[in-house]
């Protein structure tokens, strides 16, 4: 099983890799923090990974992303690409527009480029799963995270269309929408006393969804119903809620 992970140092991605490692997977991992990625690679090897290759981090240049996808698939069939990178700064209503651009680049543009880059070769090979980590924040956005949420909303619509494009090719598209998860991104929420899903729990659901080829998964499952309600709230009520 060959698995490509973009943003492999994210808590959810790392825990997914641990689950795949015990099955003896071959990994190609990409992340900005290469020192951390090396520690993760050693960990996955001890856990049973058959091989771990570290890719040169390149998140924004379309030509480089395409070259990476083409060469990775050319070296042997890829079963899964997990696109997991993201960045969520706090208090987004107070940030300048350069930060807004950065958030959109990291959370929306870059993931789409990776999915696009793998969609073609996967369709040609008539196999593979493109898994994207979205967010419940893509269903409803609030002032503290609306730029991030809007990026994740773009991924939701993008995944919907990509799934349509790939019907009949044998390629699966899986969108995971975690609720707030206990990772480096959310330490401030723990301080506020919120109960967060563990990265391990979200990873287990993610790996399971990929195995079954589910199109859209909320983790924990309860979020599907929570977001269904919140999405249908009238604006005057929604804007008074302390969320």
């Amino acid at each position, binding site marked *: 099983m060959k698995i490509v992970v973009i943003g492999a140092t994210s808590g959810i991605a790392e825990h997914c890799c641990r689950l795949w490692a015990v099955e003896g997977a071959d990994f190609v991992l990409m992340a900005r923090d290469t020192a951390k990625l090396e520690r993760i690679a050693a960990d996955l090897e*001890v856990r049973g990974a058959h091989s771990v290759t570290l890719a040169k981090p390149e998140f924004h240049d379309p030509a480089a992303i395409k070259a990476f996808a083409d060469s990775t698939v050319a070296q042997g069939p890829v079963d899964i690409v997990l696109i997991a990178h993201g960045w969520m700064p706090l208090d987004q209503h107070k940030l300048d527009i350069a930060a807004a651009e950065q958030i959109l680049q990291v959370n929306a543009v870059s993931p789409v480029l990776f999915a696009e880059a793998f969609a073609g070769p996967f369709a040609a090979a008539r196999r593979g799963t493109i898994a994207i980590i979205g967010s419940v924040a893509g269903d409803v956005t609030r002032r503290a995270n609306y730029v991030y949420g809007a990026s994740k909303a773009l991924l939701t619509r993008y995944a919907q269309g990509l799934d349509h494009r790939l019907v009949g090719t044998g390629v699966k598209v899986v969108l995971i929408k975690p609720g707030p998860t206990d990772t480096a991104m959310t330490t*401030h929420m723990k301080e506020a006393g919120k109960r967060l899903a563990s990265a391990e729990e979200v990873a287990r659901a993610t790996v399971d969804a990929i195995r079954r080829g589910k199109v859209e998964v909320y983790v924990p499952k309860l979020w599907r119903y929570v977001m269904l309600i919140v999405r249908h709230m009238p604006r005057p009520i929604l804007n008074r809620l302390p969320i």
Partner: protein
Amino acid sequence: MQGAEAMVYSDASMRPVSSWGRLGAEPHDVVELTDRTAIAAAVTGRSGIAHGLGRSYGDACLNPNGLLWRTAGLDRLISFDQATGRLVCEAGVVLRDISRLMIPRGWNLAVVPGTQFVTVGGAIANDVHGKNHHVVGTFGEHVTRLKLIRTSGETIECGPDERPALFGATIGGLGLTGLITEVELQLRPSRGPWLEVETVPFSGLSGFFSLSDESEAAWEHTVSWIDCTSGSALRGLFMRARPAEGRSGRRWRGRMRRVPLTPPVSLVNGLSLKPFNALYYELGKRKTGVQVVHYEPFLFPLDSVLEWNRLYGPKGFYQYQSVVPRAEAFDATRDMLTAIAGAGEGSFLAVLKTFADRPAAGLLSFAREGVTLALDFRTSRALPALFSRLDDIVRAAGGRLYPAKDARMPRDFYQAGYPNLAAFTALRDPGMSSGMSRRLMGF
């Protein structure tokens, strides 16, 4: 992504933290450690204590209104040698993960405590023991090397042959010699996940002692549950287990349930104690005979109920675990059980176990030759008087209490039970300080 992490570190603010006994939730300044190369920077010049999964019951892992370095994010494996069974890992790795990964490869941790939800660092800092103490001793005996980062900024490697004094102080040293960051463990060959388990009902303490003596040569794991409400007519279930050679039992799914909420009052109380203990005894008696059982439900019976500590209600609970020398154990145990029954208190799961006579791995290791008794008590007004009565019995017998379980022992009793304290203090990292270290050692 880099930006988010940097922000998180500088933005550490106070949040409530409890230990397993849930006796309080004082605010702590929690710093999450996730990068083993960045620990020195987080620790140097500061004062606090490491906190793994918070499974110690009292204040060993707490530092109210001060700094906690949370190590659960330091959970990466570093290397493993399949031929020798040497595993190198970060200190926040959880024991369950090691066992689940290594048993299929023919290796396992030599020592595991009654829960798998502890970190390697925590297992060392409390020099934990398991049901197989008579065969393999304590966790610290299987640590071949560890790396400490001191608040002076110094990084020190130590082991049984390298800076052995500091190593001995770190084993069972309650995290006070520096932050344990990396550990090398000698695993033990494993013959798979299945255990041959036998449950033998017994009555009277003499029944327990004769079963212990007769079982230890042939059975790797021994432990007894006792009905602590039975008073002088003591009854219990002696459980012994050993690897099941080439046999397997019913598939273990490892399903876990969670206590969904904290009940307004303790569910362990005068009304529930007797019926629960009677039921547990009757059900246990039916299991008499040899069965093949997966190691997880046998070794970690409470792990399948997440957050079982909530059952004791909002006021939390105390655990009292003592060890007394074997020569005194009969009388001391009888006196303790009589005192507990007389106070109308008790626990669902009172545990009695013998420790073998082995040299201690650490200066402050709890385990010693003798008999250990562990009980949970809900918080109640009767407890201080009962505890001081129990302290008197343990102290008179030349015994001591287990700091990992303790939230209240008097300082003089601690000093009496741990004669190496002065030698230990000289090796401490002066920046490491916990609620427990201030209570029992003065700083």
